[in-house]
């Protein structure tokens, strides 16, 4: 579904991504894990067209999207929940969801209902200004907003960041619900333990390159991973 081939990405002179290749097949949950600054977020930003690689190739559903303008991607079925949520704080919850459905002419009511089914809390707060939501609710809104574009591939950047453990559990449960409903998931996480639990496959990034890859189970049991990311 998504193929990334040997991409090199720079921030000015800084060589942030040094030849990463990986793929996400339809129906999978794939996790990119790694320490801060390993290049996980940069990889996602490059896929979603916020940044462009200097070399390499990215294709989605068989189409080369390496240099496609980012705003054209949601219509093709690619959605991203960005790092730090980035919901529209001065707009209402409903308006945020409408923006999520921007690529559709007129989103059907059932799409909103679908989001509210996953996140009943958002329904209660639908006319509230998004800036007044709690951190967990904001993360839910960011996820609901991404769902509104009916993505084929949903990319989540650090969805557990800054949330209480109980909320992290809830967010991961909902990611699995999305997956069960037929959405392919690409997940970037620092919380390797949680990510490996739900991932079919995972890639470990270290300083802009892939250091290890395998199934979620294999990696969760690997000594290297245990030592580096799972606290022993």
């Amino acid at each position: 579904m998504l193929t990334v081939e040997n991409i090199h990405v720079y921030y000015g002179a800084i060589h942030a991504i040094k030849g990463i290749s990986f793929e996400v097949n339809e129906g999978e949950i794939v996790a990119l894990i790694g320490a801060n600054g390993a290049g996980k977020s940069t990889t996602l930003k490059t896929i979603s067209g916020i940044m462009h690689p200097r070399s390499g190739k990215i294709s989605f559903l068989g189409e080369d999207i390496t240099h496609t303008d980012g705003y054209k991607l949601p219509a093709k079925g690619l959605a991203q929940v960005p790092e730090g949520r980035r919901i529209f704080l001065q707009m209402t919850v409903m308006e945020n969801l409408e923006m999520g459905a921007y690529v559709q002419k007129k989103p059907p009511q059932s799409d909103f209902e679908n989001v509210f089914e996953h996140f009943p809390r958002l329904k209660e707060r639908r006319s509230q200004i998004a800036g007044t939501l709690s951190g967990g609710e904001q993360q839910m809104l960011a996820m609901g907003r991404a769902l509104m574009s009916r993505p084929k591939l949903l990319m989540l950047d650090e969805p557990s960041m800054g949330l209480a453990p109980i909320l992290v559990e809830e967010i991961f449960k909902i990611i699995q619900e999305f997956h069960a409903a037929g959405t392919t998931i690409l997940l970037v996480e620092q919380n390797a333990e949680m990510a490996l639990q739900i991932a079919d496959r995972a890639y470990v990034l270290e300083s802009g390159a892939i250091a290890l890859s395998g199934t979620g189970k294999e990696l969760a049991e690997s000594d290297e991973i245990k030592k580096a990311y799972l606290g022993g």
Partner: protein
Amino acid sequence: MMSFLSSLISGVSLGSVYAIIALGYTMVYGIAKMLNFAHGDVIMVGAYICFCGISYLGLPPILAIILAIITCTVLGVVIEGLAYKPLRSAPSLAVLITAIGVSYFLQNAALLIWKSDPKFFPSIVSFEPVKLFDGQLTVSAVTIVTVLCCIAVMVCLTVFISTSKTGKAMRAVSEDKVAAQLMGINVNFTISVTFAIGSGLAAVAGVLLCSAYPTLIPTTGSMPGIKAFTAAVFGGIGSIPGAMLGGILLGVIETFAKAYISTQFSDAIVFAVLIIVLLIKPTGLLGKKVSEKV
């Protein structure tokens, strides 16, 4: 009492023109995060086009106004595309200098085309002034039209921004360009739309301004442009109701200062009030507090 009322009415009318211009500044600032100092000169171009439409082409005023609006809308989009778009990721100082450059370019182009001798702007409002209180207070037709235009612009713009899909996309872009792009919003197109609306409004403001003060020269737009920029900052730059409030207050303060204190010092008084407001409330009267949840 009558002179007070009369000053108040002309203040609101002048303020309405400032408000319409300030909307252009504030919308562009809100979305592109830049101060378009050429905005005042777009007003002048709008007024000249309307003048030419009536005096040279013999168009009826309403057609001349529409011609001015279309010309300025196109001009705004062209300016944005040629001068500002290539600088989207440049430091804001570079964009500011470019805007000042565009401003001088427009003034000098106008000087070449229309020469420096003042043009007398024809009257476009043909109905009679309204007399109130047994003729003690006369309100000119231009004043009434100006205030009505301002109200109409305010209502239309508010409805557009709060309910239409493009309007909501504009708000989304103004808050977070990257997130807006992730929603599938074409950020560059949205910025162009904003310039188009702002410049179209500038044409309206130019026509209204020159109907009230009918002498038209290539620098006609610069002082009202700066005043309207002040009004936008006064009300809280980036805020649409702020621009309206700031514009009207500025017009009223200026007119009262002229009527009761000193004609020469009226501009100084206006700017002094601005400084005081900014000292007390740095974000302007209706400016948004910058707060973020982390």
